[in-house]
């Protein structure tokens, strides 16, 4: 039996939350990178929430944010985290399990 990671379930929606702090180049790059990766891999079944900690610092503790930018995959479970400006797409795809198991990207 193959392990299900949620990505092969076409109906599964990805709920992603990206924590940034202000409009820094790193933050902007992360937002742009995330959008691009999601469009490429999860078109139509993802939701991105960008949280600016400069505006709402009280939210940092809840998701145990230390580094910025941090991407949290809230759904599907399990919870996964990724830090950095997401410039390495391959790592993001693998790290967040955005690609169904066994499926080869052309």
């Amino acid at each position, binding site marked *: 039996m193959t392990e299900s990671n949620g990505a092969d379930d076409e109906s599964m929606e990805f709920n992603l939350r990206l924590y940034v702090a202000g409009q*820094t180049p*790193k933050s902007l790059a992360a937002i742009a990178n995330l959008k691009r990766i999601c469009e490429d891999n999860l078109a139509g079944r993802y939701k991105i929430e960008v949280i600016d900690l400069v505006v709402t610092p009280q939210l940092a*503790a809840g998701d145990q944010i230390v580094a910025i930018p941090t991407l949290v995959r809230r759904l599907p479970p399990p919870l996964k*985290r990724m*830090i*950095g400006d*997401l410039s390495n797409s391959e*790592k993001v795809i693998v790290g*967040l399990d955005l690609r169904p198991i066994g499926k080869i990207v052309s």
Partner: protein
Amino acid sequence: MHLPKTPTGIGGLDDLTLGGLPTGRPTLLCGAAGCGKTLFGMTFLVNGAVKFGENGVFMSFEEREGDLAANVHSLGFDIDGLVARKKLVIDYVRIERAEIEESGEYDLEGLFVRLGHAIDTVGAKRVVLDTIEALFSGLADSSILRAELRRLFGWLKDKGVTAIITAERGEGQLTRFGIEEYVSDCVILLDNRVQEQVVTRRLRVVKYRGSAHGTNEYPFLIDNEGISVLPITSAGLGHAISDESVPTGVKDLDAMLGIGGYFKGSSILISGLAGTGKSTFGAAFADAACGRGEKCLYFAFEESPDQVVRNMRSVGIDLTTHLKAGLLKFEAARPSLFGFEMHLARMNRDIEQFKPSMIVVDPISAFRGPSTEIHATLIRLADICKTRGITALFTSLSAIDEQMNESERSISSLMDTWISLRDIEADGERNRVLYLLKSRGMSHSKQVREYELSDDGIHLTEPYLGPEGVLTGAARMAQEAREREAENERAELAEQRKRQLTRKRNALERQIAEMRAALDAEEDEASKLVDHQSVRSTSTAADRAAMAKKRGGSR
């Protein structure tokens, strides 16, 4: 300009840093596991909130909020209450490497945001980061980390908060990840050393930029009263002295000392073999002090308080009433429980809290270990007492045939009065004698005295001193009896001689009387004869005259 300082409220530490930690700057607190870093940080914050009106933030990288609160609850720190009253914020930062993937560049702005938010929430002046090095195991890119830490400490300074950053002790350097590079204003090292199977905690201020500070290693103590650091000796010997005397609790002993007791604030050593009643002398001293309404602290290292009380009852010293009145306090602990310095720190704290006017340490010989350490410990204890004007009585167990043992030798020069208790074994019994080995600043008896522990206390008796040497106990009594007998005999003899003389005198006088009577008789006879003769001669003449007349007249 004087460097502003923030008091930690930790007894002793503020003394040796001359005021506390540098205000508005980060201080690095490093030490191996189990040194008390977390507790130190927490004490700093709680004292700040409770004693100095400065709120704090505790950012924990290792322990959860709940665990932290539970761990320090035993010290009487009400963390939950402080958090509820918005005097303290505890933020637990959890970093699990396994849960974090890295992709591209990042910084630790999230941490800054959290910390900044926490500081602003309560208007914190004090911050503890415990221990920030956990980041190194949570995040892979140490070059980013180092740059961010440098930024963090700068940022803390800009915020104007007084921060403690804890770090694990590293090999060959102060911290495992070398963060002492970034925190350089004040570095405090905690140490937990095992020596002769006994642990001693020590603290050293490695560096304090812009301020003088004590440079030695200072023992510190963590127990249910919190942390206390013992600043070592004001060894200047500048303590004020007193001419007053303090009764010894043994009347006869008072008389042996020139001023009628020990000097107030002096140190007294009572040394002796097992069973010579050292503790009894200590207890008698304590009893007398409490009887005068003074406070006495009794450090028992070999017996439990109850045992001391029971044993002293048998010699007529009732300590229970003093205990109930709160004048007497026992502090009992096995010497092996902590290291010397730990004991010292504990004793120092007890003395500070109880403020006794005299202490009894029973016995100092219970401390085993390198003599230099015993020496240092006892010197400091004696100094602590002297600077406070506390009269301190130490007992010490000597070994048989040993003039002085290690602890005595090391402490003897510190002692103002030294009473030696000895056993004299002779004629199948053991007797106790004491003598004053020394007593500074007063004339005192040099006499060896025998003493007895009776059921109404300690009594000294005059020993037998004579041609036979010093005799004690039964031997003394026998000798005294012998002497009494001899005395009687002599008296009898004299009486006899007197009687004989009288008899002789009487006889002689009788003789004289007889002779005188004989003489008188003779005299009587003689006078009779003379009378007779004169009568006869008169009559003869008359006869002649008559005859001549008859023959015919005169021729």
